[in-house]
């Protein structure tokens, strides 16, 4: 693990204030990861982020970018190497989308052809057609599009490091979710080192490779992976900040293909009653009826067979509607189970073909396994340290 940004005893005292806003913060940010600074309002998380590109100059302490001490270098030069996105986005309203995105490349003296190609590439990356949007002005875009352009502008000169201050804070929940997913997809390709500030622990858990939970004066309460923080909060402050439902939040971090599916008895839609009875065997549970393409249709048990004679298997029993995909989160899977008539989630591939089932016991088992794994990992780490 290469360290990309290192903060060393960073302190910021604002004139006229008794307490420092950031008090002797030391922190290492690994290359290619999203590190989230999260904490209650006034904890100094935004100040901390602005110390990194020196929009706020530290009172004392040092900042290293890779191994270079950047505490005293020319701040404008430093900032051109670091992408910067803020909640209000701050697009330049009098400039076109093209000119907005071209800002830093122009400052760095790229030639026109390079800049033009780069702007088109970025617009394509964020899903906006270059021909349509290049010469539009910010006021002609929707909130979500402006946010996308803000991110594209920060990436324009391909900086290794990006600072993002509540970048998805001012957007409606549905668009926010979409932009977050889109950003995670882009990040999985570009692998930037990102420092991301938010006050929303759920966003932190979703976006972060690592989370630093900050309390007053930017003191680190805990700095670890989301999994470890959820399973093993360092103290009451962290536990309280995560809030109730840490277990449920944990389910957001795992996907169906991370855990072991179970099998259940299945029959073809055309099977006769005796076949179904054989498949049911001694259990009081249901068999899953599949159609010719092996797609799930109905859940059927012995009682259903008794009650209605003569009708086909696809017309009796309970609908098989709790369907999830291998990449669904366990949280979504659990939700499907809870709202379905028969509380077992069926896993299908993208073609709709049956792959296996997940029931409440499977999830329970998986969560217990994850916790044990986290614990032993923590124990290992403590062992190494001590």
């Amino acid at each position, binding site marked *: 693990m290469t360290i990309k940004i290192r903060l060393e005893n960073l302190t910021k005292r604002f004139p006229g204030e008794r307490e420092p806003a950031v008090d002797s913060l030391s922190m290492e940010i690994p290359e290619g990861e999203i590190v989230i600074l999260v904490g209650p309002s006034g904890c100094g998380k935004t100040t901390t982020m602005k110390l990194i590109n020196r929009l706020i100059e530290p009172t004392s302490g040092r900042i290293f970018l890779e191994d270079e001490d950047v505490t005293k270098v020319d701040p404008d030069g430093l*900032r*051109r190497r670091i992408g*910067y996105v803020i909640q209000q986005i*701050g697009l*330049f309203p009098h400039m076109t989308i093209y000119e907005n995105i071209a*800002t830093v490349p122009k400052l760095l003296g790229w030639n026109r052809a390079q800049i033009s190609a780069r702007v088109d590439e970025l617009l394509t990356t964020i899903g906006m057609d270059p021909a349509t949007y290049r010469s539009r002005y910010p006021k002609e875009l929707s909130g979500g599009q402006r946010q996308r352009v803000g991110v594209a502008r920060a990436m324009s000169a391909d900086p290794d490091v990006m600072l993002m201050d509540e970048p998805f804070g001012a957007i409606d929940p549905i668009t926010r979710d979409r932009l977050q997913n889109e950003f995670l997809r882009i990040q999985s390709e570009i692998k930037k080192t990102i420092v991301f500030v938010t006050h929303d622990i759920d966003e932190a858990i979703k976006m972060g490779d690592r989370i630093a939970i900050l309390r007053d004066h930017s003191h680190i309460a805990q700095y670890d992976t989301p999994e470890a923080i959820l399973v093993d909060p360092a103290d009451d402050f962290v536990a309280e900040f995560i809030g109730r439902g840490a277990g449920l939040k944990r389910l957001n971090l795992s996907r169906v293909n991370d855990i072991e599916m179970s099998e259940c008895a299945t029959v073809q839609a055309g099977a006769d009653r005796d076949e179904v009875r054989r498949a049911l065997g001694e259990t009081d549970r249901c068999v899953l009826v599949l159609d010719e393409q092996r797609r799930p249709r109905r859940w059927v048990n012995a009682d259903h067979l008794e009650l209605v004679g003569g009708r086909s298997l696809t017309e009796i029993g309970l609908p098989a509607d709790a369907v999830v995909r291998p990449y669904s989160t366990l949280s979504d899977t659990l939700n499907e189970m809870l709202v379905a008539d028969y509380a077992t989630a069926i896993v299908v591939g993208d073609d709709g073909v049956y792959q296996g089932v997940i029931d409440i016991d499977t999830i329970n088992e998986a969560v217990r396994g994850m916790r044990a794994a986290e614990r032993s990992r923590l124990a290992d780490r403590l062992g190494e340290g001590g």
Partner: protein
Amino acid sequence: MSEFISYLESHWDDLLELGIAHALVVAVSVAIATVIGVALGIATYRTERPRELVLAITGFFLTIPSLALFGLLISPLGLGWPPVAVALVMYALLPIVRNTVVGLREVDPAIVESAQGMGMGRARRLLRIELPLAWPVIMTGMRVSTVIVVGIAAIGAYVNGPGLGEDIFRGLRRIGNPETALNLVLGGLLGIVVLAILFDLVYVLLSRLTTSRGIR
């Protein structure tokens, strides 16, 4: 009425000449006032005390009666163009300084912060971001100044200044011959009204040409 029209017909070339001189002294004065006013605005918009001071002084200029000011300027500057231009610049300052300060202070701080965060230095931020965004407000100040100064320039004829004031003062001196006096004064007045309208049209055109489509 018909006599005034025949007066205009026989004197239009004089009126045109005076009108052009009038427009010129107004345009030059507002241009100089814009350079000085915008510079003063830039220098003081972030600091309260100097800002208040500059606004108080330029505000005080506007309260000096124009005849008195022209009179005062004769001894250091003589007659003709110089005292008129200097006085007009002084009268044109307040709206321009005030609007420059207001325009710059109204720029969304998030926009300035993101410019700074991308590595734009102080001067570049001012030139590329803050001034273009404040420009429509500054133009409004120039427009107000022009309206003020077009009228005051007429009084400049009192110190032999250029422009339509010359006809008005000649008229006033011929009170004994009411018909000629009336024609001269009305002619000057008409010229000033036409000039004011023309200046306004020029500003409409100028703001179209110099304001980005993104902030119109």
